[in-house]
């Protein structure tokens, strides 16, 4: 008989999760270097590495540090934020199909951004102006307000994740309807700008749009990781986790707030990059073979997907394809595949 004494405990992260996380870090760094080089005829990989280490020519410095690096870093951060937000949402909802979208974050951000573009169209010219401070701010406001409303509507002496999902789906549909109405009413230039924003893209990202996401990640990641044990326990149901001493409602509020802030930060920088928050946690969970998505690993997979997808649009595909289209093209078939092979009881 195999004895597995002392092999595992909830407090000791399993070794496989650690290995997956470490490999994820290395892979993300490699992808980042490829992302810097992608689509450029003059840069080689050794050039990029040398410049990153501070030994490039002034011309290389300009291209790498000022033009390419912000975009690559933004990709890493946006992907990490979406991946972690997805892992948090799927864990607390105990549902692999749950994404932060169901909290009303993305639809709220989209409505905010589109309203800003369409209603204040004159002051936001297409292109660089889109990424000025105003638009991300409005998007964040829209995200926070709509998710607060969804949470408030779901509250009945506590928030039940099932009710939260249903209300979130309803809110997403309603907000999406208003967004579509605004686009239908808009002037053609504004409508194009809105549509571009809604696809999710990293083109034109500068250092200014990187910092807010970075600050959010630095603040939220430790809080999210601290909830890791409680997330593990709530997999046993609200009643068992209460019995084990988890303050379920407080824990759930913290987790939802983390997911909302991470998603809002990501969406404000790049627009809604589809399916990352949904796919990244599931890939991480399958790699690490855990019961629920590991948070850090999900963030790293998200970073790899977004940075890699963006590098692909610049290096391989013709024209400027927004990264949101790539992730949707990868994500949608994955969703279908997951749905068709879901034999185990993963939802409640």
């Amino acid at each position, binding site marked *: 008989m195999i004895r597995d004494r002392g092999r595992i405990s909830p407090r000791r992260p399993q070794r496989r999760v650690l290995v997956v996380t470490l490999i994820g870090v290395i892979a993300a760094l490699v992808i980042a270097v490829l992302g810097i080089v992608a689509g450029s005829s003059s840069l080689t990989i050794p050039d990029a590495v040398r410049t990153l280490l501070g030994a490039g020519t002034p011309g290389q410095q300009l291209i790498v540090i000022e033009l390419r690096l912000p975009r690559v870093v933004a990709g890493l951060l946006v992907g990490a934020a979406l991946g972690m937000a997805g892992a948090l949402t799927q864990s607390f909802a105990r549902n692999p199909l749950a994404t932060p979208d169901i909290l009303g974050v993305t639809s709220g951000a989209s409505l905010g951004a589109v309203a800003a573009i369409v209603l204040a169209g004159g002051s936001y010219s297409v292109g660089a102006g889109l990424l000025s401070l105003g638009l991300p701010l409005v998007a964040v406001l829209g995200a926070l307000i709509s998710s607060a409303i969804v949470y408030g509507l779901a509250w009945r002496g506590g928030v039940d994740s099932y009710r939260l999902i249903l209300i979130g789906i309803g809110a997403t549909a309603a907000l999406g309807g208003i967004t579509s109405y605004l686009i239908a009413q808009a002037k053609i230039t504004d409508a194009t700008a809105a549509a571009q924003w809604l696809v999710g893209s990293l083109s034109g990202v500068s250092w200014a749009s990187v910092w807010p996401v970075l600050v959010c990640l630095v603040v939220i990641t430790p809080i999210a990781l601290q909830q890791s044990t409680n997330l593990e326990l709530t997999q046993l*149901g609200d009643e068992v986790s209460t019995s084990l001493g988890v303050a379920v409602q407080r824990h759930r509020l913290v987790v939802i707030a983390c997911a909302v802030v991470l998603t809002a930060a990501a969406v404000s920088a790049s627009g809604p990059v589809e399916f990352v928050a949904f796919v990244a946690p599931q890939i991480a969970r399958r790699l690490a073979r855990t019961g629920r998505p590991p948070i850090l690993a999900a963030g790293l997979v998200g970073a790899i997907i977004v940075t890699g997808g963006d590098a692909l649009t610049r290096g391989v595909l013709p024209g400027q394809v927004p990264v949101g289209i790539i992730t949707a093209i990868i994500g949608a078939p994955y969703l279908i595949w997951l749905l068709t092979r879901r034999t185990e009881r993963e939802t409640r």
Partner: protein
Amino acid sequence: MSHMRTDSAGRMTTPPPARTSTVPALEARGLTLAYDRSVVFEGLNLSIEAGKVTTLIGANGSGKSTLLKAFGRIVQPTVGVVQLDGTPVRDFATREVARRLAILPQKPLTPSATSVRDLVSRGRHPHQSLLKPWTPRDTEVVDAALAATGLSELASRDAGSLSGGQLQRAWIALVLAQEAPTILLDEPTTFLDLSHQLDVLELVRSINRERGATVVMVLHDLSLAGRYSDRLVVVGEGRVLADGPPWEVLTPDILRAAFDLEATVVPDPSSGSPLVVPALRPEAASGFRWPSAN
């Protein structure tokens, strides 16, 4: 696993918590329980004696599960307090409650990709903190809980692959690993065949006898409730209808009033406890006619 002993005065000598036989393990004081606007109990007083097995029985919808959940702080009372070891339960930190009180709900969720040992290990959570992570004693307690429930050899199996009876024993092992002196069990025998029901109830009885644990459970089978309990509490119509040792509670009159059940009660030939034998009920089907074939 540390066994609880009693000294000559009948007091538990193993902390936590030190308590005398006069302090009830759980006490409902003026408890009003309601879902939305429908009131289940109003002004309920009920005291659960420490070290005994108390079983709540009652008809479907009588609120026995709700009462158990209120004791386990899963349902919050609209009015009144629940006292745990003589102190209002809301005065304790949530983790302190978890060290004193464990509740096994009717339908816990079995996590995916989790071994039996992993599942049972989660019972140790209330005993851990950032400053006091997993210790060798935690491993010992988990080993003992697995052994007590006969799951040692299945410890590395995936919890999702267990049979119904094994899974229920795994959940009870988790509760054992929690080392709480008071244990609440909501219908621990549902979905189990009779043989596995007996296994679970014998296990519960031995936890009570060997560790001095206070057990409060909800059961549907009246005869099994009579066999394995020190005290039965019959609830219905928003109050306690009857309360006492099995032979005093399982009487034809009380069964008629609480369950709308005509029955005779005879001594169980194997245990001597009350055995409820329901009368035939031909009138239940008398109103039914097959539609004539046209």
